[in-house]
Structures are given as structure tokens and as C-alpha cells.
């Protein structure tokens, strides 16, 4: 495995910072990791490395690097808060550029999935509805089926018919954003649109149960949910196109 910080040319010809971890295996699938709102932090980079250690090439774009180049992840996240977050068009462009970067790697099998946590969960679904991808994982993303007033976080239900790939949803029953009711709404909408999806809702877990550096971490649930991710990506990203 090799992990490094790179520059990735994005949709608007801007160079954005990204963290890349590559596997030494042949015919490897790729995973675009979308960081949570608190930023492009150490815990997210550990997730990127985890994918490479498990046989995937993985990349995470620093979504805040345009406005805060060289800043620490917490300062950049604070600046992003002051701006109200990242516009959806920019996010989709950055994820698309990251997916293209993965497909251009010499050991790529041309399959690319996406995964996002917290705000990144919504952005993972948004990406899968806007780009040609092979698998998407939504980890407790709020504001997929509802909007937050006076916020950039708007519902993306209108885009769900465009979902381009299978979706795995991982949620905590004790979470309120998204609540179990919102997850049920999303389930009904995806069923209506005849989309391929699998949801797991875990008892004893709330929001951010994957976050190893936060009190919300639920190790048993996270371990089980990681197992679902390996199964899902193994099914959809492993073989050559």
C-alpha cells in the first residue's frame, strides 16, 4: 500500500488537494471517500488507507482546499462553515474528477464506487445521482429527503430517479438526522423508482457510529457495518468491466 497527498485537476481546471492510497493488487476497484463536514482530517485519511489495505485504490478530495489552501483541516472546516458549506455542483465536479483519477491508475479495473459520512452521506447519494458510478455507500447522510431551511443542504429526492448504481445505506436507529422515518421515506422512494439498494439500520447506534475519534463511535456496530461495505464493494467493484 502507498499513501500520499496529491493534486487532482478538477472540473473547473483548478488543482485540488487530495489524499490517495493505492493497493499493489492488479485489477483493483476504486473508492472515492467524501469527508464529513468537520473536514479532511486524520480519521478520514485513515479510512482512505483502510480501503487500500483491503485491496482498493482510494482517494479523498479536500473539499475545502480551494478556499483554504494549506490550512489545517479544522481551520478549513471553520471557514467552510462561515461560507455555508460546499455547493452541490462543486462537490459533484470534485467527486467526478477523483473518480477519473482512480480510473486512470495503471492497476484500475475501471470500476469506481463512492462512500461518504455524515454530510458526505448525502453527497455520496448526490454523486451517484449525478455521475456514472458503480456503487455508492451512504453513511447516515441527512437532508437527502428533506431540506434544511436557509441552508445549502436541500433535499435531493428529485434526483433519485437518476441513481446510476446500487446503493448501500448504513444508519443508526438512534439518529435523528437522518431519523428512522426519513430513512423509511428514502426506502419508499427508491422502491418506487425500482432502484437497487440495501439499507441496514443498527440498534444501539446514533449518528457517526463509524467515527473512531468521537464519543458516538460504536465499535461493534462499526465492525459489522464495515463487513457490509466489504461485501457490497466486493460484489460491485471487484471484477473487471
Amino acid at each position, binding site marked *: 500500500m502507498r499513501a500520499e497527498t496529491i493534486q487532482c485537476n478538477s472540473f473547473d481546471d483548478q488543482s485540488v488537494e487530495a489524499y490517495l492510497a493505492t493497493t499493489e493488487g492488479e485489477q483493483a476497484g476504486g473508492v472515492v471517500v467524501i469527508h*464529513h*463536514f*468537520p*473536514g479532511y*482530517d486524520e480519521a478520514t485519511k485513515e479510512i482512505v488507507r483502510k480501503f487500500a489495505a483491503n485491496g482498493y485504490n482510494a482517494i479523498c478530495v479536500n473539499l*475545502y482546499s480551494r*478556499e*483554504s489552501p494549506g*490550512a*489545517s*483541516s*479544522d*481551520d*478549513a*472546516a*471553520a*471557514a467552510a*462553515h*462561515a461560507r*455555508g*458549506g460546499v455547493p452541490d455542483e462543486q462537490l459533484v465536479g470534485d467527486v467526478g474528477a477523483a473518480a477519473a483519477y482512480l480510473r486512470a491508475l495503471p492497476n484500475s479495473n475501471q470500476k469506481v464506487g463512492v462512500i461518504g459520512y*455524515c*454530510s458526505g452521506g448525502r453527497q455520496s447519494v448526490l454523486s451517484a445521482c449525478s455521475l456514472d458510478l458503480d456503487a455508492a455507500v451512504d453513511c447516515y447522510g*441527512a*437532508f437527502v429527503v428533506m431540506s*434544511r431551511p*436557509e*441552508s*445549502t*443542504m436541500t433535499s435531493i429526492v428529485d434526483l433519485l430517479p437518476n441513481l446510476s448504481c446500487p446503493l448501500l445505506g448504513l444508519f443508526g436507529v438512534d*439518529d*435523528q*438526522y*437522518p431519523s428512522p422515518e426519513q430513512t423509511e421515506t428514502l426506502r419508499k422512494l427508491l422502491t418506487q423508482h425500482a432502484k437497487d439498494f440495501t439499507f441496514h439500520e443498527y440498534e444501539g447506534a*446514533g*449518528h*457517526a457510529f463509524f467515527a473512531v475519534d*468521537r*464519543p*458516538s463511535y460504536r465499535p461493534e456496530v462499526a465492525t459489522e457495518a464495515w463487513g457490509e461495505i466489504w461485501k457490497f464493494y466486493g460484489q460491485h467493484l471487484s471484477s473487471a468491466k
Partner: protein
Amino acid sequence: MCTYEAERISVTGSAKGANGWFRATDATVYYDHPVHFGAGHALMVDVINPALGASSRVGLELNAESARELALAILRSLDGVPAGLLER
């Protein structure tokens, strides 16, 4: 969850951050996931100068109770300033 929104105000003053003192021009206040404080959510205050870059920041992460106490303490301090001393 991430709340995605912040109260933002203009401020006049100075703040001391990681790189020393800087002229503060803005402040944001929001309730969201903290970076360092060990809680799911916290009241965050950032005193910043965006023109100097994202690193010109003094950040606070407080639990809700202490954030309210801080806000009240600021108001008490200002209310207690002797007549004629309060500058704009």
C-alpha cells in the same frame, strides 16, 4: 448531524491565534460536531479574519451550558462598565 449553518457577524477587535495576534473582522457561531471537545455536538465560536486566510482563527468548542454562561458573562461585563467608559 451537521447543522450546516452558522450565525455570522462582523466584529471589530483583535484575536490571538496560532500565529499570534491578528485583526478580527468576523465571527461565526454554530452548533455542530466539535473537532477536539469530546462530545457529539458543541457550541462553536470562531473569531476570524477571512482576508488573512483560514488559519487566522480563534476557535472555541463549548458545551451548551457553558456557552450560555459565557454569553451571559459577556453581557454582565458590558452592563457593569462604569458610565462614560464604554467605547464604541
